[in-house]
C-alpha cells in the first residue's frame, strides 16, 4: 500500500512545487533584462542605406552608410547602489543587424531597479588581453591592428562637407590609454525617470533606450563640423571631442515591465 502511495505523493509534491514556481507574484531568484536600442537621427529612425539625408547644427547635410558601436560593463542600480554588474558582457551594436540592437543582460537578481549604467567601448583591461572571440572577434571589423585596440564607435557616410574624393566621412573613435587625452571610453548613466524596473524572473523586463546620433555632431557639449573633421581614425584630442558627444547620445525612453 505504502509502496503505491509514495510515488503518487512524490508526483503531487513535485506538481505543487512546479505550480508554485510558475505562479505569478512568487519571485524567482533572477531573470533576464533586455535592453532595446533604437538608433535615430534627430526625430527619425536612422537609415543606414545612405538614402536619407540629415542636416547637422552646422548646416552640413550627411547620410549614413555604417553604424557600429560597443557597449559593455552594464550595471543596474537601485537607490544609487549598484545591484547588478555584468562582467565579461560585450555587445556590438550593428545597425545592419537588427538582432544586435537588443541586448540581453542575463542572471539579473530579482528586485527593483531605477537606473542603468554602461560603458561605451571596450574597457582597457580587455584591450590588452590578446585574441578575443564572440562580439570581440577582430574579424568584426572593429579592431585596430596597427595600434592594438577596439574601435568603440564607427560612423561612416557621405557629406558634401567632406573633402575626401568620394565625399565619405569616416569616424572610428577609440583609444583606451590614459595618456595625453587618448581615452575615449565613456560611461553613460540613465535614470528610469521615476519608474521602477521589477525583475522577478516572470514578467518581461525591458528597457527601451534611444540613441540620437545627430548628437555625435551637435553635442552637447561640442558642436562638431564635418568640414575639417571628415576623417577621425586615431586616438587624440579630436576623438575626445566626439567621444564627449557620444557620451550624450543615449536617453531612456520607457520600460516594458508587465506581468505575463
Amino acid at each position, binding site marked *: 500500500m505504502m509502496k503505491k502511495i509514495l510515488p503518487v505523493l512524490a508526483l503531487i509534491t513535485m506538481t505543487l512545487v512546479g505550480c508554485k514556481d510558475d505562479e505569478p507574484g512568487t519571485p524567482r531568484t533572477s531573470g533576464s533584462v533586455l535592453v532595446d536600442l533604437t538608433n535615430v537621427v534627430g526625430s527619425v529612425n536612422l537609415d543606414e542605406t545612405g538614402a536619407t539625408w540629415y542636416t547637422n547644427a552646422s548646416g552640413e547635410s550627411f547620410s549614413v552608410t555604417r553604424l557600429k558601436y560597443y557597449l559593455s560593463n552594464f550595471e543596474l542600480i537601485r537607490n544609487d547602489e549598484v545591484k547588478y554588474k555584468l562582467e565579461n558582457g560585450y555587445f556590438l551594436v550593428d545597425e545592419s543587424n537588427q538582432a544586435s540592437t537588443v541586448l540581453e543582460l542575463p542572471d539579473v537578481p530579482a528586485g527593483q531597479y531605477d537606473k542603468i549604467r554602461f560603458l561605451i567601448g571596450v574597457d582597457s583591461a580587455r584591450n590588452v588581453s*590578446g*585574441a578575443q*572571440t564572440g562580439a570581440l572577434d577582430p*574579424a568584426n571589423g572593429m*579592431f585596430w*591592428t596597427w595600434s592594438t585596440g577596439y574601435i568603440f564607435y564607427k560612423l561612416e557616410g557621405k557629406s558634401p562637407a567632406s573633402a575626401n574624393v568620394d565625399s565619405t566621412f569616416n569616424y572610428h573613435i577609440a583609444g583606451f590609454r590614459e595618456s595625453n587625452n587618448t581615452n575615449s571610453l565613456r560611461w553613460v548613466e540613465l535614470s528610469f525617470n521615476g519608474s521602477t524596473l521589477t525583475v522577478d524572473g516572470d514578467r518581461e523586463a525591458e528597457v527601451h533606450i534611444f540613441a540620437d546620433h545627430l548628437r555625435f555632431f551637435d553635442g552637447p557639449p561640442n558642436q562638431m563640423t564635418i568640414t575639417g573633421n571628415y576623417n577621425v581614425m586615431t*586616438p587624440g584630442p579630436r576623438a575626445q571631442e566626439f567621444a564627449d558627444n557620444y557620451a550624450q547620445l543615449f536617453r531612456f525612453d520607457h520600460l516594458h515591465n508587465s506581468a505575463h
Partner: protein
Amino acid sequence: MSLRLVTNLSSVRCAILLLVLVVSFSACTDENQTDNQPDLSIRFEVPAGFPPPVYGFQNNPLTQEGFELGRALFYDPILSRDSTISCGSCHQQFVAFAHSEHRFSHGIDDLIGNRNSPGLFNLAWHPEFMWDGGVNHLEVQPLAPITNPIEMDETIQQVNLKLQRSATYPNRFLKAFGTDSITTQLVMRAMTQFMGAMVSADSRYDRYRSGMVSFDDSENRGLQLFRSHCENCHSEPLLSDFTYRNNGLSTQFNADPGRVSITQLPGDSGKFKVPSLRNVVLTPPYMHDGRFNDLEAVLNHYSQGILQSSTLDTTLPAGGMQLSTQEKADIIAFLSTLTDNTFIRDRRFSEAP
C-alpha cells in the same frame, strides 16, 4: 618488493647509460645523417637566468598539434591577399627570423615597407611589439602584418574563410583545439604557440654565463665595454629593456615619428623600441629604418654620430661614446658571441622540419 625496486632502479640506470651512449654516438655521426629522427617535440622552458615570461601560455596551453599548426600558418602565404607572402617571407630562420639583405621588406605587389624587419626570438618576454610598440599582446601581433596594405593586405574575415574552406586546416584545428570551427582567436593562438616557443638561449654568451666556456681577451674586453656603454638599454640577459628611446639618428622625425604615433605624447617623438642584440651579427641592416649596413657603422654612430634633439635619450653622452678602433673591434667580438646557432638550425622552427 625491495628487490624489485632495486631491479627497476638498475634498469633505469641501464636505460640512462644506454641513452647517453646513443646520444654520444649520434652526436658523432649526426652531421650528414638525414634519416636520423631528431626529437621535434616542443616544450617551453624558461632558460636559466631569464626573468619570468610576459606570455606564459596560461590561456593557450602549448601542445605539439597547436605548435605545428602555428608553424604551418607562419609559413603559409594563404594569409596574404593573393597567396604570395607568408610570415616566413620576411622572417627567415637562417638570419634569426629577420629579413636577409633587406633594408625594407617587399610585401604584396612588390610594395616596399618603411621599417626594417626585426628578428623573431624570445617573443614571450616582450611586453609590446613592433618598432613603435603599437601591438600590445603576442596573440594579436600577426594581425598587423596580415592586414597591412603594403605587407599581406588581407582581411581577417577572409583569412578565416580561406582556412575554413581549405582541405587540411579544419582537421588540424580540430586536433589542436578540439573544434574545426576556425575563428580569429584560434588562428592567433596557434600562431602564438609557434612564435612564443621560439626561444633563443644557447649562444656562446649563454654558455659563458653558465660557466661552460670562457671568452678570449677581446671578447672579455668587449663584454666590459658593452656593460659600461650599452647595457643600460640592451639589458642582459634578453639584451633589451624593451623601452622606447631616441638614439640620436636624426634631428627631426617627420619621415617616421615612431612611438608618438601610438601614445600621442610629444615626448615620444623619434623614439623606437630598443631591439634585443641577441643574434645581432645575423640581422643586418640595423636600426628601425635599416640605415646601417654593418655593426661598424652602428658603433661609429654611437661613437661620434649622435644627433641632438629634444627627445634624445638622456643616457647617451652628448658628444658620443668616443670609442677607439680597438674598443669597437672588441665590442663586435663580444656581439659575435650572441649568435645562437642552435636556434637558427632548430628544425622545429623550420618550414620543412
